[in-house]
């Protein structure tokens, strides 16, 4: 259950049995062709995979450097890559005979994805969400309810994603008999980071096939944003063995790495344990986990998936960061030149890739994971760009 020195199961003894059950079921499922068939069939017939690979001709021309391709995870059902994993895990839950689903959510995207698959599989669904996030993301709360899920406010700690995750784990310990915990990113105790990666690696597999079909070669660089890191690990995984392909993960630099307001675990974090896994995280000198900051709710997590920590430590993936402002600028540029409004998360990958593209030749290529659509962020953008009151954001 490790990626190099990272990962593991740093959990109370009470969680060991449910984790072992998940692991056993997962190992068995992954060997069962019928499981993979059902997973792929749902991805195709329900979520709309394969997602498109879009050549961004205008932005390529504007930047004047490397050719830029976008892997369009924004075109998935519910608008982001999150559904790939949610489908995989709920199939596993069904296989394990579980009838109820638990999930944590920050801004609500994974909560919506989970509520979606729970509805599709007729399972009860409880989504833990920080009390503050519930207020800020009232529309996503409404969506989850519309999909039949119950949204449970996490009132402990900072009342955000970190604490929603704590609450979900606490609830799971007590109700593991009939509940499956559907984690949304490549984080948490083993086997979750591996499982989420395995359910997300289709992104990179598809993109690689599509890219080589169009370009007849591999991309020079693959870029993805990293919060917990599920879209990035999904995008990178099939490219790890391709040694000539540069892999670049982009963290949220927030207001800048020289401030306290960022979510750059690789640049500014240290090794530690969060939510049951050993990885890089943001903490103070006493080992208390600190609250990260990013304009992007999806990157605003104090830890990072342990496999990323490993890939960084062996030098296979480069981790960079991009500030709020740089990401918003990239978002606007993509909207105006390509007619695609990306999620602010994805805009972090774009910003770094655009910068990189300028320094590359026209014969070179960059493949970017456009992890989600920006519709969910329009309130944030209105407030930011038109200077409106934050208090309207809840609607």
């Amino acid at each position, binding site marked *: 259950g490790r990626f190099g020195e990272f990962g593991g199961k*740093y*959990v*109370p003894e009470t969680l060991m*049995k449910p984790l072992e059950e998940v692991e056993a079921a997962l190992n068995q499922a992954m060997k069962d062709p019928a499981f993979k068939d059902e997973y792929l069939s749902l991805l195709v017939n329900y979520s709309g995979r394969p997602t498109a690979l879009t050549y961004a001709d205008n932005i390529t021309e504007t930047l004047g450097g490397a050719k830029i391709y976008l892997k369009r995870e924004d075109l998935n059902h519910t608008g982001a890559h999150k559904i790939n994993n949610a489908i995989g895990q709920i199939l596993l839950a069904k296989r394990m005979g579980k009838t109820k689903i638990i999930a944590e959510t920050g801004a609500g995207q994974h909560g919506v994805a989970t509520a979606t698959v729970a509805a599709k599989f007729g399972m009860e669904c409880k989504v833990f969400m920080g009390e503050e996030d519930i207020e800020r993301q009232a529309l996503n709360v409404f969506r989850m309810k519309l999909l039949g899920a119950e949204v449970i406010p996490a009132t402990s700690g900072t009342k955000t994603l970190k604490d929603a995750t*704590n609450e979900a784990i*606490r609830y799971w310990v007590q109700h593991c008999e009939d509940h499956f915990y559907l984690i949304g990113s490549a984080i948490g105790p083993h086997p979750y980071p591996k499982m989420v990666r395995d359910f997300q690696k289709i992104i990179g597999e598809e993109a690689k096939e599509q890219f080589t079909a169009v370009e007849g070669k591999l991309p020079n660089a693959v870029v993805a944003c990293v919060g917990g890191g599920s879209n990035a690990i999904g995008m990178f995984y099939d490219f790890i063995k391709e040694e000539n392909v540069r892999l670049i993960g982009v963290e949220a630099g927030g207001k800048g790495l020289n401030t306290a307001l960022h979510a750059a675990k690789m640049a500014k974090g*240290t*090794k530690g344990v969060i939510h049951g896994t050993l990885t890089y995280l943001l903490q103070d000198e006493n080992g*208390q*986990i600190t609250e990260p900051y990013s304009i992007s709710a999806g990157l605003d997590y104090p830890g990072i998936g342990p496999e990323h920590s490993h890939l960084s430590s062996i030098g296979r993936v480069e981790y960079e960061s991009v500030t709020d402002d740089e990401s918003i600028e990239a978002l606007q540029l993509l909207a105006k030149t390509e007619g695609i409004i990306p999620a602010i998360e994805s805009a972090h990958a774009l910003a770094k890739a655009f910068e990189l593209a300028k320094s590359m030749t026209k014969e070179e290529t960059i493949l970017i994971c456009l992890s989600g659509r920006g519709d969910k962020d329009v309130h944030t953008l209105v407030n930011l760009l038109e200077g409106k009151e934050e208090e309207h954001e809840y609607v």
Partner: protein
Amino acid sequence: MFIPFITAGDPHEDATVEIALSLQKQGASILELGVPYSDPLADGPIIQEASKRALSGGMSISKAIKLVSVMRKKGVKIPVILFTYFNPVLQLGLESFFALMRENEIDGVLIPDLPYEESGRIRELAAENEVAYISMVAPTSKERIQKIAADATGFLYCVSSLGVTGVRSTLPVDIGTFLEDVKAAASIPVAVGFGISTSEQVEVLKEHSDGIVIGSAIVNKIGQLEQVLLNKDTRRDGLNQIEEYVASIVSPIQKCEV
């Protein structure tokens, strides 16, 4: 054995020392001293709140360890077990952690989020430093009980029921069987904890275990008395109330030991 749990620095360092003395006075056999943590996964709301109070007063893992020296000076003689999540230990560094523990006369350590499989190195260091490494078993541990018990030192901590720490009104029906299974596997004393708050529960559990951990019930009382305990002039009154409360719960244990 009566094994009370309190959080270091809740509501204040000085108060913690005095509460420890009160607990010793009320017959505590071992003190479990909790290091407050930002993300206490195994704990319920009562201990989370205690962590919050302690952290806002600036408590940290090294301060908590050093506080035991103060306790010793003030007269705490019973063994002290440090209860801490793994991350603060990691930040201190495993070697420094054990050195600091020794230096401050701590007898054992319990790390709730470090299961058997992840604890190899810690157990080695604990042995080298002659610090007991307290292992936990849960009702779901089943076949894991054997291996955990085999390597356990100090006492073996049985989690009475699934879930987090906190006050529960009832005990699981099969708690007796579980505890007897553990006792059969263990060569060291067996203690039980999580959710115990009434003398009736104590009455039942003492038949099946060598020790009973009472945490949230006491911490809850401390929380209620926060202001009284923070004020030097009223602190003694608060301590008296804690002592009374503890006496009422633990009388069955003491009766048994008498």
